[in-house]
């Protein structure tokens, strides 16, 4: 995926990689270190918490916990790649696009996801996909990362429980 991002951007100039809280941030960090290994280039890494931009905030029960947002560099005129673990309805990405717009006007925004499970509710498509997985609406798919979950895995389960 790191190679694809560099290829998509025709190099690492002006590139900023932004992970969506929470698992997207760890994946983004791995992409940045992978680019550092292969291209000998240091790409800025950011984190975005989209909780305050969710379109269902007025209806969810207790307020969700808000994580940190940290955009390390000016995004104006740069190429931003948003990284998330699973792409499903597209609503998180919609929120991330809105939030990024409050930080400036990137030259281009691309979307890279590890898993695309289909089931979009908005006209949003990824530019780079690790793996496409067909998933029924009742199923859930979770990406586990070693930093938070002690192992790397993608777990498909039948129950739709709240995370």
């Amino acid at each position, binding site marked *: 995926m790191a190679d694809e991002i560099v290829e998509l951007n025709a190099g690492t100039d002006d590139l900023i990689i932004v992970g969506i*809280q*929470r698992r997207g941030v760890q994946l983004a960090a791995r992409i940045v270190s992978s680019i550092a290994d292969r291209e000998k280039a240091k790409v800025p890494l950011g984190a975005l*918490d989209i*909780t*305050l*931009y969710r379109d*269902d*905030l*007025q*209806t*969810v*029960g*207790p*307020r*969700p*916990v*808000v*994580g*940190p*947002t*940290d955009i390390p560099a000016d995004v104006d005129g740069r190429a931003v790649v948003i990284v*998330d673990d*699973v*792409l*499903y*309805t*597209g*609503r*998180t990405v919609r929120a991330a696009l*809105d*939030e990024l717009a*409050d*930080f*400036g006007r990137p030259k281009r925004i691309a979307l890279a996801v590890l898993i695309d499970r289909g*089931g979009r*509710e908005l006209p949003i498509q990824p530019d780079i996909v690790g793996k496409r997985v067909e998933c029924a609406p009742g199923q859930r798919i979770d990406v586990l990362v070693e930093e938070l979950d002690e192992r790397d895995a993608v777990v498909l389960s039948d129950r739709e429980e*709240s*995370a």
Partner: protein
Amino acid sequence: MSGAAAAPLGKDLLGLEPLTAEQITLILDTAEPFKEISERAIKKVPTLRGATIVNLFFEASTRTRISFEFAEKRLSADTVNVASTGSSVQKGETLVDTARNLEAMRIDMVVIRHGASGAAQFLADRIESNVINAGDGTHEHPTQGLLDLLTLRDHFKRLDGLKVCIVGDVLHSRVARSNIWGLKKVGAHVAVCGPRSLLPNAIDELDVEVFDRVEDAIDWADALNVLRLQLERMQAGYIPSLREYNRVFGVSRERLERAPRDVVILHPGPMNRGVEIDSDVADGPFSVILDQVTNGVAIRMAVLYLLSGGRPELAEAAKSGGR
């Protein structure tokens, strides 16, 4: 998605006395990410879009009212300010009637500052909107207490075991009460220091240490929260003169330099320089007074966020909650 909040706050924020340590910690933790929003070029998130908040201020206030207003606006709420002067309150309308009339215009939250202790509770019991106490009489000023806690936690990286002494007019101070209750719940040690005429008679019931000499308080404390000497108290005969108050209880650089450790200085404002606090202390290296003001906006954003919305009957309907 992020996990659900563990300890929701309920409908209103009336004081720190009724809160648990977990609820206080939740508010402080929630305030952290809100600090960053005020550093952005566009200092605004859409979280409270469409919510209407009334700031009902029956007493003079600059800092608190503006801080609430910034917090509301940075969350995209619509705000209306009502002051007692120039409103129908002057024509004799009661507090409940004022609030019910506002509620009839479909508001969502009320932030109230009132001279009578218990006014916020009184209102909260009678209207459906969320009520946030922005200071009621000599009772509580919970968001000030919370921002003091956040400022101390930022500086010391902990609150448990911290020694904080509140210096000055504890008797008339709602800030003192919110601090005492809030700090004790999160495990800090609390003391008060001031002339006995400005300490409550029932100070023993608050279970805090009492220092009669400010030098002893400075010896003991990690941080001092210096309260404003409300100047109108002098006329009422609580203290002989401002000069004498400054000589005996004033926090001066000379006194702080004799302390065994660096003592961090808080003040809720507005300051009387040269009375309860000397200028070289207020502007000195251990003053976190302006950090308190910055943190005030983040704390109020966190409280607004945590109290707003969250209507459980709609939560069921919207359980699609996908990525």
